[in-house]
């Protein structure tokens, strides 16, 4: 079973062009700016943010929730498509795995930015109490990071071995690294069976882990006495919202990588079409939960509930709310229902819209609720009746997003985005099938 040179040349990672270099440097600059801003925050305290005793969770938390949501893409696409045996997943799974890894790592880091006393991080382990939903997060996030890394790593082994040989002459240093990481992969039957079993275990494990992660994230809110959070809808609402954010991110990143790495022959319109259908399905489910969350409480119209909803429908957050619902959900659904809307370029724009909508959606879940407490906000400075992130908060948040993109960029630079071995195997299979079919059909 010889893998054609063309396939390897097409799929092996290559050095960045000018654009790639500019992109990477920009991301590094934003990240550094964010680190400086964070150091300043540690020195001066969270007084540099615009958070206050009422709006005491701001974009740090909503950004964290966004990262957690996006990391769900690994569980949704890789594992679910694998279990349902959807063959079209091959060229896109690795991108999904990479997004998952980047997002969940950044989620773990972002949550610490919101801590008033980062110097006491270890207290979570020394004095941790199981009854607190924060401890549930402390347990599930590292678990999910490990599972995501393994799900990315195990299927990579054969490809790493291929790359080791591929780069042995042109770049021996890189080749050596691939060699180490490939764990002496030779492709023997025994190795293959171990690898297959491991992947299967991880692929099944990531589904409950992903569900737990999203649910714990939802419970961070629904365990509290707050209008808009205290809802039994939250767990399922977060899981479906995470599918939207994750698949939206996948579509966007996939389009960019396809263009940058010239993978048009491997990631085809067919894949976009399939993924478009998947995205519209997740959007429709999410719409259903949004109706539960925003329309149904209108019927009982409890005082606090209705004040909160009016705040969103027509209050200070109304423009954002309608942008998120219409731009982030309804327009994507309409566009994706048409075959033409599922072509790569329209899908890219829809993906962007979904991701931006998803980000602001988390903001709308977190902050407006905090500004609607049971007892009226009185006796605090006027500015405490509103919340808009400060310069520090924006810089730090942009930096976390840049770091996530940086992790993705780094992995794209050094890993084959489309699995080489599996693509070769599948091509071979189709060849065999073709010959079998032609043999049986012709008398």
């Amino acid at each position, binding site marked *: 079973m010889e893998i054609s040179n063309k396939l390897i040349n097409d799929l092996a990672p290559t050095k960045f062009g000018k654009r790639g270099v500019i992109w990477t440097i920009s991301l590094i600059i934003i990240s550094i700016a964010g680190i400086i801003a964070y150091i300043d925050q540690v020195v*001066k*305290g*969270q*007084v*540099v*943010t615009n*958070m*206050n*005793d*009422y709006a*005491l*969770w701001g974009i740090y938390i909503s950004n964290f929730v966004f990262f957690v949501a996006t990391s769900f893409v690994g569980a949704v696409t890789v594992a679910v498509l694998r279990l349902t045996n959807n063959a079209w997943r091959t060229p896109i799974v690795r991108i999904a795995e990479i997004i998952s890894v980047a997002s969940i790592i950044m989620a773990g880091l972002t949550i610490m930015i*919101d*801590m*008033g*006393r980062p110097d*006491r*991080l270890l*207290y*979570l382990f*020394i*004095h*941790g*109490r199981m*009854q*607190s*939903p*924060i*401890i549930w997060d*402390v347990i599930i996030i590292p678990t999910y990071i490990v599972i995501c890394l393994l799900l990315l790593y195990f299927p990579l082994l054969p490809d790493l071995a291929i790359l080791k040989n591929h780069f042995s002459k042109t770049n021996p240093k890189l080749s050596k690294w691939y060699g180490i990481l490939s764990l002496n992969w030779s492709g023997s039957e025994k190795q293959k069976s171990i690898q297959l079993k491991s992947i299967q275990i991880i692929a099944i494990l990531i589904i409950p882990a992903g569900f737990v992660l999203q649910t714990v994230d939802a419970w*961070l809110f629904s*365990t*509290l*006495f*707050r209008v808009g959070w205290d809802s039994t809808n939250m767990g399922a609402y977060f899981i479906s919202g995470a599918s939207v954010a994750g698949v939206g991110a996948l579509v966007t990143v996939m389009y960019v990588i396809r263009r940058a790495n010239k993978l048009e022959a491997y990631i085809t319109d067919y894949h976009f079409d399939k993924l478009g259908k998947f995205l519209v399905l997740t959007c429709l489910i999410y719409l259903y939960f949004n109706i539960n969350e925003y329309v149904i409480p209108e019927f009982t119209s409890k005082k606090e509930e209705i004040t909160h909803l009016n705040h969103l429908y027509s209050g200070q957050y109304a423009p954002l709310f309608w942008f998120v619902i219409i731009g982030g959900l309804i327009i994507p659904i309409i566009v994706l229902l048409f075959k033409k809307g599922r072509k790569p370029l329209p899908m890219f724009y829809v993906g962007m819209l979904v991701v931006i909508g998803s980000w602001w959606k988390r903001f709308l879940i977190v902050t407006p609720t*905090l500004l609607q*407490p*049971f*007892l*009226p*906000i*009185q*006796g*605090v*400075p*006027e500015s405490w009746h509103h919340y808009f992130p400060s310069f520090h908060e924006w810089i730090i948040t942009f930096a976390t997003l840049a770091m996530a993109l940086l992790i993705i960029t780094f992995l794209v630079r050094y890993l084959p985005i489309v699995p080489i071995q599996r693509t070769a195997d599948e091509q071979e299979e189709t060849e065999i099938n073709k010959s079998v079919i032609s043999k049986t059909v012709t008398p």
Partner: protein
Amino acid sequence: MANKKTEEGSNNRRNFLRLGLMSSVSAVAGATLISNLTADEVEPSGEKIRVLTPDGKMVEVDAKSINKYPEAVITPTESRKGIPDKKFVMVIDLAKCKNARKCVEGCQKAHKLDDHEEFMKVQLIQNNEEGSPYWFPKPCFHCDEPPCVTVCPTGATFKREDGIVLIDNERCIGCKFCITSCPYSARQFNWGHKEKFEDKSQPYSPETQVPAAEGTVMKCDFCPDMLRQGKLPHCATACPMGVIYFGDKNEDIVTNGSETVSFSQLIKDRGGYRHLEHLGTKPNVYYLPAVNRQFPVERGFDVDEEIIERYKDVPFVKELKEQGKL
């Protein structure tokens, strides 16, 4: 005249509470207290006070020796236990409140709080458009099912045997989860560094919350340091109207400094209730409804412009402003 009477009453009351509480003071500080007494030769004043030793004996000591003894510092570990056999409760009589804000100021002074840091807040509540608004002093409710304690990841906030909910700011990691969990918005966060945090003249105790610390949470604490001395919390002492009653549920007794009444009888007779009862947090702060009021609500507007501005969203205040009466 009336004032003098109040003062006398409050003194009597304090002595009364002191007797009840003295045993607990000596339980904590007793061992050192006694050794202190024997070590120091003090000229006796002649006045004797009876205190309980840790082994349960009643002894008589000279009053001067006790006064000389520095107040015991309750460390974070000790503060988790609570004062034995007590179950503290507060009753706030809304019919008597006229927004004099003495409770707020007294509390701020004792806890070294700044302008907008208020453990006790006086809110103006109007339940419906027709309803008459009333002044609503709001401390921490020290719930029996405290959501803040449930969600705290490190046990920095805790519920004691005597019903008080406190915060150990040396344990707090600043996640703010407890602030979001509190349906009564009782908690506050120290967002930035302040000079007063560095004042170490008074050793830190969760019972006083002084000095506060950056990046940690604080809130009303029912002044356990005062309770240990047999005194009322600062807000109750400061209130000129006797709005705030404080006492012990086990003894079924509460006092506002001038009158001492049976807690259960007070609640029964005056229709006492707990705010947002339906949430099931079981607060230890009760309210007596604002009926048969001693002052019209307008009396409460006899304060700074800045304070009036706080209530601008209340329908009643809007109305007054439209009519040019404010």
